[in-house]
């Protein structure tokens, strides 16, 4: 592959971001720019790099976040003109760059302090994770910030390719709402009552306890017969489980039949049996388990230090090979 942005200079202002969520989003966008060939410069303030101490920490005391986002990149002064800068609203606006990508909480203007938990709360992503009377739970890791970073990179890449002299704005709130579009689309298209009813429906997609961990129990109406036959309990043929609507209505009774079957089998047994019937059930795997996962290994996805390559293989058939972007 010829790197897309060879010779382009990109300024990463994540060390000067107004908040941590901004910093993570900006650094993700810059990481992608570097992976696609740009020369990325990331100045750090005299007091040190706030990302250097961000947990999770490795046994040597360094930050796994910094290793993930910054490895293989140059640090240096922000001298000269850049093809693009990505940063918080103020720093990016002031940068000497043709294209200025500004990451903010709500878009151009005021940029109040905001956490990723707050972004999930305000965008409805948290309420999408509420069920069973328990407090809704955030998504693991840094999803709101990293997703905004992906959006910022796309805006940056398109502007760089076109040679734009412009500003591009990425709002972390808008990005989170964009990801959670079905919630607000339901309000806009079907009305508030329909949206409330949808939110109140028992969740038929969930994790289920297996003998050695959990699996994701995920299926559509068309998968029901296969799932029913997989579990093999005659009670599942009762009329109260015949349709998607009736299964939702009788969810507690259904779960009482399904749960013991899952609990009696290992994740591998469940997955093999489900996949043989093309039911989209899969094991819940921890990051530690993913280090030896056969699919990731076969595709060379993780380095010896656990660092993932980009989730992309760039295939060149002419040379008969697949090349990965570092």
């Amino acid at each position, binding site marked *: 592959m*010829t790197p*897309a942005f060879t010779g382009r200079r990109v300024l990463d202002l994540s060390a000067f971001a107004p908040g941590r969520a901004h910093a993570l989003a900006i650094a993700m966008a810059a990481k992608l720019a570097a992976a696609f060939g740009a020369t990325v410069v990331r100045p750090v303030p005299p007091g040190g790099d706030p990302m250097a101490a961000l*947990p*999770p*920490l490795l046994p040597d005391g360094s930050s796994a976040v910094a290793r993930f986002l910054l490895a293989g990149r140059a640090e240096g002064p922000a001298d000269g003109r850049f093809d693009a800068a990505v940063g918080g609203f103020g720093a990016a606006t002031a940068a000497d760059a043709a294209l200025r990508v500004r990451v903010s909480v709500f*878009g151009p203007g005021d940029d109040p302090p905001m956490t990723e938990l*707050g972004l999930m*709360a*305000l965008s*409805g992503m948290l*309420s999408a*994770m*509420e069920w069973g009377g328990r*407090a*809704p739970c955030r*998504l*693991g890791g840094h*999803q709101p910030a*990293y997703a905004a970073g992906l959006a910022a990179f*796309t*805006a940056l*890449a*398109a*502007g760089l*390719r076109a040679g734009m002299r*412009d*500003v*591009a704005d990425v*709002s972390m*709130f808008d*990005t989170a*709402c*964009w990801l959670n*579009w*079905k919630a607000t*689309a339901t309000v806009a*298209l079907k009305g508030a009552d329909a949206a*409330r009813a949808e*939110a109140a429906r028992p969740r038929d*997609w969930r*994790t289920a306890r297996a003998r050695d961990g959990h699996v*994701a129990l*995920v299926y559509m109406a068309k998968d029901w017969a296969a799932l029913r036959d997989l579990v093999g309990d005659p009670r599942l043929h009762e009329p109260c489980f015949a349709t998607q609507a009736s299964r939702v209505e009788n969810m507690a009774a259904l779960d009482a039949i399904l749960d013991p079957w899952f609990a009696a089998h290992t994740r591998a047994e469940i997955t093999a049996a489900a996949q043989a019937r093309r*039911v*989209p*059930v899969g094991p819940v*795997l*921890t*990051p*530690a388990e993913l280090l030896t996962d056969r*699919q990731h290994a076969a*595709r060379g996805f993780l380095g010896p230090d*656990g*660092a993932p390559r*980009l989730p992309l*293989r*760039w295939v*060149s*058939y*002419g040379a008969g090979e697949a090349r990965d972007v570092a």
Partner: protein
Amino acid sequence: MSREGGPREGGGPLAGVRVVDLGWLTAGAASSALLLDLGAEVVKVEGPGALDPFRDWAGAGAADGDWWNRSAFYNFTNRGKRSLCLDLKDPRGLAALMRVLEGADVLVENYRRGVLASFGLDPATLRRRFPRLVIASISSQGEDGPERDMVSFGSTLEATGGLAALTGPADGDPAVTGRNVNYPDQVVCLFAAGAIVSALAARDATGEGAHLDLSQRELTSFLLGEELIAAAAGAPSPRAGNGDPAAPGGMPGETPGETPGETVERDGAGWRAVWPGGSAPVRDAVAVAGSEAFAGGTALLRTPDGLPAKGMPFRYGTWPAAIARGPSDLGADNRATLAAAGLPAEEIEALERAGVAATRPRRGPLL
């Protein structure tokens, strides 16, 4: 009906880029929509026997006449695209698509692995025939590997990609986002669009297109990159509920759970997210849609006809977020698209008479 273009058409950073969209549901179709939002022209290709499953939805039935044009979620996602309906299992339909691809820059697809090849459209063949074409294949597991054919929805990938293990209460079960979010199907679009734009930039330099093999499971794991690195160093993070993943309480050896300074607390009948120095209400969908920030943002926009439409997560000073056209009815752009690809009128008419180019499906609604 193909709705009239607005003043926004014909500009933007991807002006002049032509995309053939074989993307279904969200992962494929919304990736193409983002390219459209950047100024590309997008032709969505379906078949009379192979509709985007989003066209089936509970709000429409066979009694609605053209039910296939009534799906609100389909129209929401596919606004602004032209619609070409060709039977690709018929050699004449396939030949017509090849003519359209001659003028295309990008092909986006997220069929089940093997389906594209069954049409004679395997990426290696396409790359040889159209060396400048950028082919983006978005799949659950990637193009190869022992689990290539593992059937998964987005929430399955949350489990197999590592996200579910880190989501959920510290003292409870891991959690997935479920059918209304299907998080990996959403977030892949943001990455795929950037990767496609990068491949176009590389092509500008070399004249060579590319085949992009995008695995949603890999993306799900990639977005937990620091956790993979920590696990490899022998310091895996526990599931920590609403605890801040980058705060001391979330570290091994310390008390996981709701103590690291970020938490979600009861607030009357609802919930409130609380962190040191601030808090925010946990909004439900109705509260989000009614909020000032949402109304002033870009996540949901309106077509020129006033229909709600999927918005976009970025905007430029010279290219603001806006929707120039509504959705096209199935096959509404058959003639214009095929004529622009150089097919003579009599050939197009022959395709229509044979039902190879169509404006209605061959089946009734599934729901």
